[in-house]
């Protein structure tokens, strides 16, 4: 990434202080969001989300697996993120791994809820086929193609769209079998199950630059941040996950204020995303 001169730094910071950012946005406005679903033919569900210059793809792949012995009544979900070197030359080789695992961890935290499953965006019980024996393993893969800030929000939105797009084949389990046998399964290729994605939260990252915070920061703005808080909020307005990045400390009252701002922002974002996703789904069906 090219360094930013002192003058440019002042310009960015000054703009934010005056509620007029370098690209003409206000502090709490998003860049245009573009959603496309069904972009990956091999996957059970996929979506591509562009927010300004940030471009990400999420795919959902379902495989037959075995529930873990600790939670025999639930399926499994794993989130992997890959930062392609096309987005940033420094991601070449193993350079992107650190950021990738940080993003994956934050997304996992936001989507999968607490250990007991409360607040999870994906209902793990719905992935179960036969208790203790067979379940769906859901692999969520994110790929960052182009990065211009706000990767986490974009990935969160892409995963939400990909999950909406996901169709999982209906599975019939052959009736009674012995206790320790693996049951025979029959994967239907006609009937599909759709996911209920209404409880999947959206993620809003508030980036603190100077004394103000902004949503949807560009890479240039992110380089000037002192810290950033990513908050995921579900439809009923509950917080489903929160991660803080950046080392500098924040006053407790500031964090609480950020949470309330984030909640306010998500309301509009959630509606916008939902309509975008359903529009994209309609488009896909047409074509």
């Amino acid at each position: 990434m090219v360094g930013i001169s002192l003058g440019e730094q002042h310009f960015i910071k000054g703009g934010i202080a005056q509620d007029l950012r370098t690209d003409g946005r206000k502090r709490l406005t998003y860049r245009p969001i573009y959603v496309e679903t069904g972009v990956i033919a091999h996957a059970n569900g996929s979506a591509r989300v562009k927010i300004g210059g940030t471009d990400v793809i999420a795919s959902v792949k379902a495989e037959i697996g075995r529930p873990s012995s600790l939670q025999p009544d639930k399926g499994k979900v794993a989130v992997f993120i890959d930062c392609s070197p096309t987005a940033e030359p420094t991601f070449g080789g193993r350079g992107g791994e650190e950021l990738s695992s940080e993003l994956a961890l934050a997304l996992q935290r936001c989507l999968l809820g607490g250990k007991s499953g409360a607040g999870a965006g994906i209902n793990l019980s719905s992935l179960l086929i036969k208790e203790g024996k067979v379940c769906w393993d859901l692999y969520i893969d994110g790929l960052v193609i182009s990065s211009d800030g706000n990767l986490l929000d974009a990935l969160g939105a892409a995963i939400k769209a990909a999950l909406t797009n996901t169709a999982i084949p209906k599975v019939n389990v052959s009736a009674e079998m012995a206790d320790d046998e693996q049951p025979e399964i029959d994967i239907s290729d006609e009937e599909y199950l759709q996911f209920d994605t209404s409880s999947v939260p959206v993620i809003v990252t508030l980036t603190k630059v100077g004394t103000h915070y902004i949503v949807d920061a560009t890479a240039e703005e992110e380089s000037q941040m002192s810290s950033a808080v990513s908050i995921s909020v579900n439809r009923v307005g509950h917080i489903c996950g929160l991660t803080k990045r950046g080392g500098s400390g924040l006053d407790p009252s500031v964090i609480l204020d950020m949470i309330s701002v984030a909640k306010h922002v998500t309301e509009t974002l959630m509606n916008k995303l939902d309509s975008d996703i359903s529009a994209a789904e309609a488009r896909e069906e047409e074509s």
Partner: protein
Amino acid sequence: MAAKPGAATPTYSPKLVGRSRLPIFKDSDLDWTRPDGRGFHQCRPALLQTGAVSSASGSAYAEFGNTKVIVSVFGPRESKKAMTYSDVGRLNCNVSYTTFASSTLGQGTDHKEYSSMLHQALEGVIIMETFPKTTVDVFALVLESGGSDLSVLISCASLALADAGIMMYDLITAVSVSCIGKSLMIDPVTEEEGCEDGSFMMTCMPSRYEITQLTITGEWTTPNINEAMQLCLDACSKLGEIMRDCLKQSTSASDE
């Protein structure tokens, strides 16, 4: 692992029969007490000690109930050869578990997730400008995992950094809160963490009254967050005092 004779033969640890795990807490059961008999807002007794490892620049041992960790700090010392010049110092963190740290997991491994979270929690308080071109290594070993491992690790690491004489803006204290049903309980043990509906981990600088790291998982309402934050802040300031006392004691002991 190669040295293990018979490592090829699969082994298993005998499990208890027929006892499904009882939910340790029910919503209706308000008289319920925690597995170790503490109150909901009561922390485990903490034992802190600096100078646990003689060969390190600084080190600390922390014991919160059954959670026992050792943190060693090495450096500031020469950065790896491959690193380019940097006018601020670097911080390198690593967390690993012993093979017997927890009763369920069999293998002792590096914990990448905790390593990066420890790094994030510490980078903001260390005055990196004081050791340009060099690296401070913070290595942690969890001897026994008994819940709230990460917060114990962070507090212990800050103590070890202070013991090593690394310049910091403030001490770092970390406290976790679990949400089970409608109740919040501070400093959860492993059993509680296993069935929690939400977790809340906060690290703060007690003297500056600033939060440096905050992670929340699970579903939380705003009043719950307010309450958890207040609980953590109180606990952090108390823990800060204990840590301060521990450091004072160790310096007065070495003066004698």
